[in-house]
């Protein structure tokens, strides 16, 4: 294997402020192999790879490319060394066309020759069976098209090492399958591929070797053919973790939300929800599946009172109370009635948390009305922050450390933990585990199930279909703002939901149940 070594990292360390992101990590990456980098949130996977792609520069340690020491101080250096990274949040300029994005930053003649660029892109597309129009603007592209474009960008630069940071997080099962085929094709071409993912079944399916990081340190590596998800998880977490989701039968489900004919038109005049009808039961988890942007966000926001509603009704029945229509109520009234929303947007700080504040400050955002007179209460939020830090194992130097400086997964724990703490009677969460590691994800699934057993109606918008199928009692599938069907979580298959996500199967409603 020695000759095949493409990249070697030797004793690499990187510190951010008070947080040690990587400590003394040594790692080898081989040609013609798919390496999967595993680790919990904040274990430093992305940081480690960012040092290869030139975003960060290591504080200590050395990097060898093809056996020669290399100093990678900028993304340009990385590209020169043949290293290309596809970031979790795509690095594309949305007002530019596909071709313009591809040649961004490349050296060459002063005047642009877009025809030649398009020709080369078409060549790459034919080689790997992509389907991308070089003149299409990025803002018109779907998530999977954008990702394809990112891959083309790297291939156009003749990269030999491809790093993908959670590439499947936003893809449908079919798109994921396509991506894996492409990656296998590249492996055949002798390229070295590193993939960061939390989905262990994907690792089993795709990778040859896994390297595990824990709290910034390298803890070991395994050959995929000799291991199993349980062993990998234990290695990641450092102790034995139960890898199944408990799904007790719903106890005495009662109707909490009854939504009829909900239609929402956004400010651009686009219909985001079209005649959506369903019920959410107390004591049950209702999953919502769909391709990103199918109306999940609008649906939850409409219920929470954050979206103007064109037509339809949202009848809410509290545990021992009168039914009332939530349409036309203010977000504050809805929240006080017991409907909570934990929305994790793509940029986790965008909604719900204030980046510059610590955990305590962010807890207070939910309780600021509770103080006496003009003063706020500080002790309760502090206690809550401590509790969340304990229970969800938030990695932070202390609870007043600005949440902006925590890693993505930790930020999310803070957000979800706070929403659950309000003990609502309808609990809505979107992408609650987006980007979270396996251990924390299971903590959150269990929290959802606990809520369900308390009689809460849980609405869970998720991305990972395997999880939705394991966790939810019923799954509502959205397609382009319409209800494409509602299926039973215990009997439905992944393929069935995948198909429903990509095409509308008539007036599905509850018929598929």
């Amino acid at each position, binding site marked *: 294997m020695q000759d095949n070594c493409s990249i070697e990292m030797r004793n690499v360390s990187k510190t*951010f402020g008070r947080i040690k992101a990587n400590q003394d990590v040594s790692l080898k990456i081989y040609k013609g192999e798919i390496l999967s980098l595993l680790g919990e949130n904040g274990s430093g996977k992305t940081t480690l790879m960012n040092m290869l*792609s030139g*975003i*960060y520069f290591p504080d200590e340690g050395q990097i060898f490319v093809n056996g020669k020491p290399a100093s990678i101080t*900028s*993304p*340009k250096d*990385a*590209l020169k060394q043949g290293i290309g*990274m596809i*970031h979790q949040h795509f*690095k*594309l*300029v*949305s*007002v*530019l066309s596909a071709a*313009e994005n591809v*040649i*961004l*930053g*490349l050296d*060459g*003649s*002063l*005047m*642009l020759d877009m025809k030649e660029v398009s020709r080369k892109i078409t060549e790459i597309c034919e080689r790997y069976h992509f389907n991308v129009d070089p003149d299409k*603007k990025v*803002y018109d592209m779907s998530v999977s098209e954008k990702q394809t474009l990112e891959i083309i*960008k790297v291939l156009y630069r003749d990269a030999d090492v491809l790093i993908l940071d959670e590439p499947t997080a936003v893809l449908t099962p079919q798109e994921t399958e396509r991506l894996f085929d492409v990656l296998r094709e590249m492996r055949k071409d002798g390229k070295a591929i590193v993939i960061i993912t939390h989905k262990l079944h994907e690792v089993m399916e795709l990778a040859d070797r896994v390297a595990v990081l824990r709290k910034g340190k390298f803890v070991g590596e395994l050959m995929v053919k000799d291991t199993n998800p349980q062993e990998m998880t234990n290695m990641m977490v450092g102790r034995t973790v139960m890898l199944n989701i408990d799904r007790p039968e719903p106890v005495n489900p009662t109707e909490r939300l009854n939504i009829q004919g909900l239609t929402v038109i956004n400010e*651009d005049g686009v219909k985001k929800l079209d005649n959506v009808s369903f019920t959410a039961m107390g004591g049950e988890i209702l999953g919502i599946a769909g391709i990103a942007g199918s109306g999940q966000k609008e649906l939850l926001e409409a219920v929470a009172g954050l979206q103007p509603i064109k037509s339809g009704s949202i009848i809410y029945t509290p545990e021992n109370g009168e039914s009332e229509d939530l349409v036309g109520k203010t977000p504050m009234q809805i929240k006080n009635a017991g409907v909570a929303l934990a929305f994790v947007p793509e940029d986790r700080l965008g909604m719900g948390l204030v980046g510059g504040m610590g955990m305590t400050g962010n807890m207070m955002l939910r309780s600021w009305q509770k103080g006496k007179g003009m003063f706020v209460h500080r002790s309760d939020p502090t206690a809550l922050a401590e509790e969340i830090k304990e229970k969800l194992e938030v990695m932070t130097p202390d609870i007043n450390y600005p949440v*902006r*400086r925590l*890693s993505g997964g930790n930020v999310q724990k803070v957000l979800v933990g706070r929403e659950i703490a309000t003990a609502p009677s309808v609990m809505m969460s979107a992408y609650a585990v987006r980007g979270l590691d396996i251990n924390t994800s299971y903590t959150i699934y269990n929290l959802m199930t606990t809520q369900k057993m308390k009689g809460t109606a849980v609405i869970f918008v998720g991305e990972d279909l395997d999880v939705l199928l394991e966790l939810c009692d019923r799954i509502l599938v959205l397609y382009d703002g319409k209800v494409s069907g509602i299926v039973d979580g215990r009997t439905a298959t992944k393929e069935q939901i995948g198909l429903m996500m990509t095409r509308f199967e008539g007036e599905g409603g509850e018929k598929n149940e």
Partner: protein
Amino acid sequence: MNTIVSLLYNAVLNGTPLMFGTMGEVLTEKSGNLNLGVEGMMYMGGAIGLAGAFYYEKMAGSAANGIVAILIALLLAFIAGAIGALIFSFITISMRANQNVTGLALTIFGTGVGQFIGEYMRTKEGGYVVVGNGLKNFFQASPFPKALQDIPVAGKLIFGHNIFVYLGIIIAVIMAIYMNRTRFGLNLRAVGESPATADAAGINVTRYKYLATVIGGGISAIGGMVYIMTIAGCVWNHEGLAGEGWLAVALVIFCLWKPISAMWGSTLFGALLIMYLRVRLPIPSEIYKILPYVVTVAVLIITSLRKKKENQPPESLGLSYFREDR
């Protein structure tokens, strides 16, 4: 007919300083920097440009050459604006300070420097700073032969303007080609839209931001010089530029960050600025004079309603960039 020709002619004349101010700011904003110091840079350009021409004439006496005087004024104005923009760049790009505050500070600073130099010259030279008639003619007359200018209507409108009008058009065309057709222009647009993307693609974000802002500041400052040397009659007055720089900032939005549109936009605003002199309307002249500012407000409201993606400001406009931020 004569009224219309005269209105159009004067619209171009009065729009030229705005055109330079706008083009400079377009270049700056394309790199994602919102430099609100245009007024200040134009002030410095105006005062220092005038000073250059004035002292050159004083030294050279009757041997003073018009072309040399124009070049000196252009160069000094450009350098003055570039220095102002360099201060802005250092504070906002390297130090990552807030761009709005820094820009406002630059306006105050530049206005002060301009006024100081202008007033200093005035008191030093006996209360009145003006360039001699010979040189003045170079700054204000058309560079084309009389025969061309004498063609009815078209002669005045096409060949009758001062040299800065044509210089501005040349710069606008070059900028348009640069931004839309060249590799560097594409990189610059990427920097303004998404510096993180540009950085990951290997573009030196800091260098692009500095260069665009400094050159943009220089071009804006030329507008101030053009104002003093043409409209204001080569003389320093207390009013200075009367808010031309702020109109330029608004014009950038009106022109959708396109240099070619800066030509039409500045001509339109040039017309609005002088309409009260040329077209009589039965309203008090004080109200008539505020027309350009009212239109500015209306334009900002209307343009903010536009939805098309291409017509939006550069996405990271006004934000500072730090690669290792998380």
